[in-house]
Structures are given as C-alpha cells and as structure tokens.
C-alpha cells in the first residue's frame, strides 16, 4: 500500500458465452475452425441481412445477473455502437447501452490486506463480439469473421478496488462464478474471459477520482496484476515529476512488462449509440427470472461456507474442492455414497486430483467414479484395509475399473485384525529390535512409529495399525 496515494481500479470483463450458436444468427460458435467457415449473411454484415436474438444468451445473462446479485431489467434494449474497423462487419457493434439487462450487483471478496469487502457491479450487458484480424507477412491483413457475432456478456464493476490484489480476487471470483454457471468455458488463453482495467490514483482523503488510464490486452491473472502495478507506479512517477496523468488507452506488453499508449482522449471514439431498430426490446418476465433462479447451481461462495459449517472441512480444503464446480460435484457424489466428508475431501484432493494431474485428465473423465472411490473409503472406515493399502487399491481400480471389494478379495489385501496373528508379529518385532526397545523404555516414545512401521512391514501392510499400536504399547510398557 502506498503511503501517499490511494489506488482506484474498476474492471470491465468480457465473458464469452458457451452457447452453441451465435447471438444473432444460427452459425456455430466452435473455436478453431477454418477461417470464415462459420459465417452467414448476418454475421458477415451483408446488405439486407438482419439480426435475430438467441434467447439462450438472454437466459445466460439472467444467470450471471442473479449470481452476482444484480437486478434483472424487465425490459432492456439493444443499441448500436458505431465505429469503423475491419473486424467489425456492419460498421457497428450490437450492444446494450442505456438499458442493460442487469444492474446494481455486487460480489464479496476477501484479501489478506483488506479482509472481507463488498465490490459493486455497475451493470452486465449482452453484446456481439468482433472478428479477428490476421496480419500477414507481406504487410497486408486478413480478417476471420468466425468469432464475429459470438455472444459476450460485459461485466462492468464500480471503481471499488483499491489494490491489484482486490482486482485479482474479484476477477477470480467472477471467473469461478461464470464457469460454475456453465455459461463460459473460462479459457483465458482463447480469450473466453477478457479483462480491461481502469486505473487511477489520488491523494489519500481526496473524494474526486484521478485521471484514469484504461489498460487493455490483459489475458492472464498474472498479467493483470503486473499491468495494474506497473500502471500505478507509472502514474505516481508522473505526478511526482510534476506531470499530469492523461486519459488514454494503454496496451500492456507482457513480454516487456510495460504498457504503451494506444490512443489518447482526443482520439476517443464518439460511438453514437442509439437503439437498434432491427431488434425488439428484450422483455424478461418475473416468471422467467424465477425459473432461471430455480435452475441455478449452488454458487462457489455458498458451497465454501456449507462445506465448512456442515461438513466440518477446513477453509483451505473447502477452497480447493470448490475451486472448480466439477470437482465439487465429484466430491459431493462421493460423500453421498460414504458420509465421511473429511476422509472424502482428503482423498479427492490427494489421490484423485493427483492422479488426474499426472495423467493430464479432467475429473469428468476420471476412471475411478465417485461410487468406486467411496467403496475404497468404506473399507478404510470399517478397518478392512489400512489407508496405505487403500492407495494400492485405488491404483488398481484406476487401471482396472474393478470395485474396491473385488480388488481386496483378489489380492488378499484384507487387513489382519486377528489379535493373535498381530500379537505374534509384535512379539517378533520386539524380539528383533532389543536396542530400540531399550531406548523406548528409557523414554524415547517417538520410537513407537518405528515399531508400528516394522509391524506393518512384516505384515505386508495388512495388519490393523490401530491394533498393532495398542499391542505394541501394552507389550513395550512391560
């Protein structure tokens, strides 16, 4: 935190929706297809073509609005944003201006420095994306309009953030929400979740906002943090040198770690927004809103709290498991089959996520289904197998798809809980290690771990560790 200046940040996030077709035509939105292969007269902006609204986009916008505590407008309006650029086929972008679909929302974030904090969301509106320019080696450019007319939500925050950490916390939460809602794939590299940051500084205590710079081209959380921090330093240096911050748009260069001016205020466009006469107002009934509300998944922040309050997970564990909706859903299925959330959480975070990472797989493709995993955990809790043997069982299930009981049976992994058998092993271990026995009896109780280990080793892992422990204690005390 700077001692002299307060940092003020507002964010505009473009969320690319995962609808199958574009916002105003029936073309596919699939990424990575041949240039201009997914186009039609509408998204090419050909003379006479007219837009028709994809209702799914409205539904996704309502979902995003409800999940970010917004009010959903009963009537919103599409407007034309007029400017010339070769990636913009019609010479205007269909967006929303005066009456967006969602307004007055908020998100609660938590950072180390400022603790819990509520950040305002000014509005969320629907709009179409532009195409992509491809710069050729001969100094010419080509345009690919596959992306043109794909649906976006623009989420505009209030200038409520006071540090790059708050900005990142906000973005991560928003990102998590839209992915949870299933309306965005959240892929930052492919530009499915893009952010522009408005950054300014002002002396502490000043009400009036300082002149802001708008930072563009921020396509990872790390770059966003870097860019904001670079910008704050740049503005402080300017003011300290007696110069002024000018209102401008700056492009961040992640390789060099610096930003460069793209255009100043005097070059700013007058977009000449006006209601698009080709589209009717979007009317959203309260019934529709309620229907969408009923269908909303449990949101990550609510889950996080519930996992701690009702399941007794630590904040850290709950955080890891709720970080992705698919992981949380997997975890909840496991708990449904075996009601020991703590054990389930340990295994999901440990073995399951570990094995997935190692095999570069998604949890949706995990060969060990929640039911199969629960089968393993049940056998741990009823002491049929030890935790250690369970790991072997898990690996076997991953490979074969068999149930835990099948694996245990076939490999004779059942834990030995016969006190006679264990006692014999315990006696042997004590007899074989007289030195350690003497040390233990002399007060070095830490050695208990060593004895248990020896018993487990001798039993090939099958001895019930609890029983081994008890027997060892009893015998060593003599």
């Amino acid at each position, binding site marked *: 935190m700077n001692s002299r200046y307060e940092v003020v940040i507002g964010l505009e996030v473009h969320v690319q929706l995962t609808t199958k077709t574009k916002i105003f035509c029936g073309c596919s939105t699939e990424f990575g297809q041949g240039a201009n292969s997914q186009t039609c007269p509408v998204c090419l902006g050909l*003379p*006479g*073509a007219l837009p028709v609204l994809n209702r799914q986009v409205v539904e996704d916008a309502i979902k995003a609005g409800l999940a970010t505590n917004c009010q959903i407008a009963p009537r919103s309006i599409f407007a034309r944003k007029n400017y010339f650029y070769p990636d913009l086929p019609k010479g205007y972008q269909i967006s929303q201006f005066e009456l967006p679909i969602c307004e007055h929302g908020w998100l609660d974030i938590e950072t180390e420095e400022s603790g819990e904090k509520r950040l305002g969301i000014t509005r969320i509106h629907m709009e179409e994306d532009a195409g992509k320019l491809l710069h050729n080696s001969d100094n010419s450019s080509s*345009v690919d309009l596959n992306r043109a007319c794909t649906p976006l939500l623009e989420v505009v925050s209030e200038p409520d953030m006071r540090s790059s950490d708050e900005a990142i916390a906000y973005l991560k939460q928003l990102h998590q929400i839209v992915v949870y809602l299933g309306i965005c794939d959240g892929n930052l590299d492919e530009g499915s979740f893009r952010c522009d940051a408005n950054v300014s500084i002002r002396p502490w205590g000043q009400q009036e906002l300082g002149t802001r710079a708008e930072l563009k081209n921020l396509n990872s959380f790390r770059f966003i943090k870097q860019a904001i921090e670079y910008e704050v330093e740049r503005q402080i240096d300017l003011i300290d040198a007696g110069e002024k911050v000018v209102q401008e748009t700056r492009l961040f260069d992640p390789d060099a770690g610096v930003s460069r001016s793209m255009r100043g205020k005097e070059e700013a466009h007058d977009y*000449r927004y006006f209601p698009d006469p080709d589209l009717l107002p979007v009317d959203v009934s309260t019934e529709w809103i309620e229907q969408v509300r009923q269908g909303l998944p449990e949101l990550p922040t609510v889950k996080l709290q519930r996992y701690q309050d009702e399941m007794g997970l630590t904040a850290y564990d709950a955080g890891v498991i709720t970080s992705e909706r698919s992981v949380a859903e997997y975890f909840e299925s496991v708990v449904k089959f075996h009601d020991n959330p703590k054990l389930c959480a340990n295994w999901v975070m440990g073995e399951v996520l570990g094995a997935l990472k190692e095999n570069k797989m998604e949890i949706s493709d995990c060969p060990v289904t929640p039911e199969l995993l629960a089968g393993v955990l049940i056998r741990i809790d009823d002491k049929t197998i030890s935790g250690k043997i369970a790991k072997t069982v898990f690996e076997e299930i991953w490979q074969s798809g068999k149930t835990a009981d099948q694996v245990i049976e076939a490999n004779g992994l059942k834990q030995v809980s016969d006190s006679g058998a264990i006692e014999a092993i315990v006696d042997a271990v004590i007899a074989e290690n007289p030195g350690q026995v003497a040390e233990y009896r002399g007060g070095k109780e830490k050695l208990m771990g060593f004895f248990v280990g020896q018993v487990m080793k001798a039993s090939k892992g099958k001895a019930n560790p609890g029983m081994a422990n008890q027997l060892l204690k009893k015998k060593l005390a003599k």
Partner: protein
Amino acid sequence: MKFHDLSIQEMRQKLLAGETTSVELTQQCLQRIEATDDRLNAFITVCEEEALAAAAVADQQLASGNTPLLTGIPLAVKDIFNTLDVRTTCASKILDNYISPYDATAVAKLREQGAVIVGKLNMDEFAMGSSSENSAAGAVHNPWDLERVPGGSSGGSAAAVAAGQVVATLGTDTGGSVRQPASHCGVVGLKPTYGRVSRYGVIAYASSLDQVGPVAGNVADCALLLGAVAGYDPADSTSVDCPVPDYLETLDGGVVGKKIGLPKEYFIDGLDPDIKKAVDAAIETYRQLGAEIVSVSLPHTDYSVACYYLIAMAEASSNLARYDGVRFGNREDDGDGLIGMYQQTRSAGFGDEVKRRIMLGTYALSSGYYEAYYIKAQKVRTLIRQDFLNVFEQVDFLLTPIAPTPAFKIGEKVNDPLQMYLSDIFTIPTNLAGTCAMSLPCGFSGDDLPIGLQLIGKPFAEAEILQAAYAFEQATDWHQRVPEL
C-alpha cells in the same frame, strides 16, 4: 394479344387455359423492355437468361397442374432487394458489381409462388430520394412525360408498370417511396403496415421506417401481390406474427357505411389546384358510393418532415457503415492506409444525396446533439403515431392527396434538397406512424399528368383500404388510361 393490356389474373387465366405460355409472356415482357427502356431507364439489370429459364420451369409446372397463383407471371423488383446470382446494386456505384449469395424473403416468396423475375428496377441510390434522379444508373423518366421524374425512390417500379414493361413490381416505401411514384405514374401502390412484410434481404435505408410494397396496374393485382409477400418471417425480428387475410376475397365489399376522415392538415392552401380538384372529385365519388365523409385532425402533421429526416438519416448513417470496401462492393485504395481506404472508397462509391444523409445522420447521433435531435424526433414520432390512433377511433380510414404537385421536371429540384424533402409531406406521416396506406389513380392534371389519391388505413387493415380502393376503381376509369410510348 397485347401483353401489357393484361392483368395478373388475366395472364393466369390464359396460362391455365393454355392460350399462352410463361415463356411467351416473358419474351413479350423482355421485348417491351427492350423497346421502351432506352427512353425510360426503369431497369438497372434485365436478366433475360435467368427469366427465360424460370419461365420454362413454370411452363412445366403449369402443364402438371395445381400451381401457385403467380406461376409463370413475369415480375420485376426494385434493385434494393437481394437476389441470388443476379447483381444487386441499390443504384449505387459502391455495389456496382455486387452479387448477393441469398434471396430477400420477399423475392424468395415470389419465387415460391412461381413468379418469373425479369429484372431489377432503377431507383434513387439506397432509396434516398423522391425523384429517382439520384441513381448511379442515371435518372428514370416518367412514361407520361419523358421530361419528368417518375417520383421516387421506387421510380423504376412505378414507371415499369405504367409503361407496360411488366405487369407488377415490388418497391419499398420509407417515406412515400412506393406511393408517390405510383401517383406520379398513374398506377396503384401500397405501403403495408410496418412488420407486415419481411425486410430480410431488403437493403436497409431507415430500418424503423422501411417497408416492402407492391406496385401494380390495378387494385386486384396489388392485393394479389401483397398476399404473396406478406407474413411473419423469423429472420426479421420486426415482422409481425399475425395472420395474412385473403385480400382478393374481400375486395368487392364496397364502402357503404364506411366513415372516411379528411385530415384538415392535408388540405393546405399551397395544394396544386388540379390535385385539389381531382381529390375533391374522389371524395364526391366515395360519398356517392355510400361512405360518410368527416373532417378530422392530425395536429402534429407539421412536424412530420423534420421528424422523419432526423430519424431516417440517423438510421441510414449507421446502416450504410458496412459499405467500407473491406468485404464486398467496390474498394478504392491508393495505399494510404486503412483510414485512407475507407475515405477513398466511400467518397467514390456514394452519390451526393447519400453522403448528405450520412453526414446529417451522423451529426444527429453525435454526442451533445443526440438528445436534442434524435431523442426529440423519437418523442415527436410517438405523438404523430398517437394522432393516427386517435383518429382511427373515429373513422375507418383516411383520404388525402399523395403529393402536393404532379410529377415535376427532371433536374427541377436537384439543387434544392429541402424542396425535394417537402414533396413527401403527405406520405411521410404514415411511415412514422407505422400504419398502412396506398396510392391509386384519381385523375389527371391539365398537362395530362396522373394524380394519385391516398387511402390511409388502421394498422394491419390493408384489406380494408384495398376494398375501398377497389370500390373507387370500379366507379372510375382512371386506371384504364395508359401512356403513349
């Protein structure tokens, strides 16, 4: 048999009776165009080959029976309609060689009904004009007096019908662009209610005002053509999903007991005496046919022209942004960078009137002026619409002149755009209100120039005004006069 004496329905009868073929009708049509169009310049493109091929297909269908109403009938459409494989220029240099990959919905509907499209009709560039002089393809001439304009912007659509080049056509009407040329050329033209006919594939001038309209030699053909193109289109969000009545079936219902309103704001002092005389006579005819005539008021009429031009130009400035030389149409590029390419392309591609409207519209939407111009105009538009809705609680339809004067001379108003804009004063309000209206012949001036009568109906009451127009047509013979060519 003289082709251009026949109506669509007569052609249909002869085709069904085997007295003629679609190929024969199409050939006669093409010959008539060939013989007259050097004087009229009504066509931008004549597609002889495609038309004859379509006619041959139609003849096969006719032979197999049970064909739709327009099977084998040669028709033409304004060059504002996108037509698959035949160039669509919108009378602009910027679309000089533009070939659309799709048919406009209205054109597709004509084809589904079996119509043979013989060509694309001349017009004011991007439908901006009232005289069909603003065309990259040159001015259209009025068949009644070649020195005069046919009206606009659908001047080619009206002149072609009047000259018997083709039996009926489609035009578009944004501020009177079907009705005013129909009036100046002595034919029947109808502007349907906004949303009645799909705008999909019609090159946009002013999206909230544009509407497709039929032009024909008589009321029945006009009704028939409207029925062929009307109806909801999922590709046009502003088209309205309400049933299309059989306009022909109700045509002879008469006007007995109908209440006709004469809006006093349309009977102004400056009205041409010949026009006043013709319209007064038409009022008398309606009285004799059993209608009741009452005086009504549309108090915001005076603001219509200003309101219209603000809204139309604002929308046009945005609609025409896509002609940037990037993806289609003509490109001019001296290698002066992107902005240079835009400037050169648009400077060279658009005519003066189009540039004027783009600039005025851009200005009206600009930051600082938007509230004062565009928003104000929208508020006025609401008042004008309300005027009509109020009046329609008292009367069944309205009767007014179409234009303050008969067709003026070519070149007469070219250098006075304001005077030109005022020539649409009687037609503009209905576009702002979104309701339906039509023009039908009601007399001739001292110079033997046709005069049109306007009937304005309630929203979606096209059947009602067609019925009234038909009653008038039966009682008079103005529509039977044809120009000497």
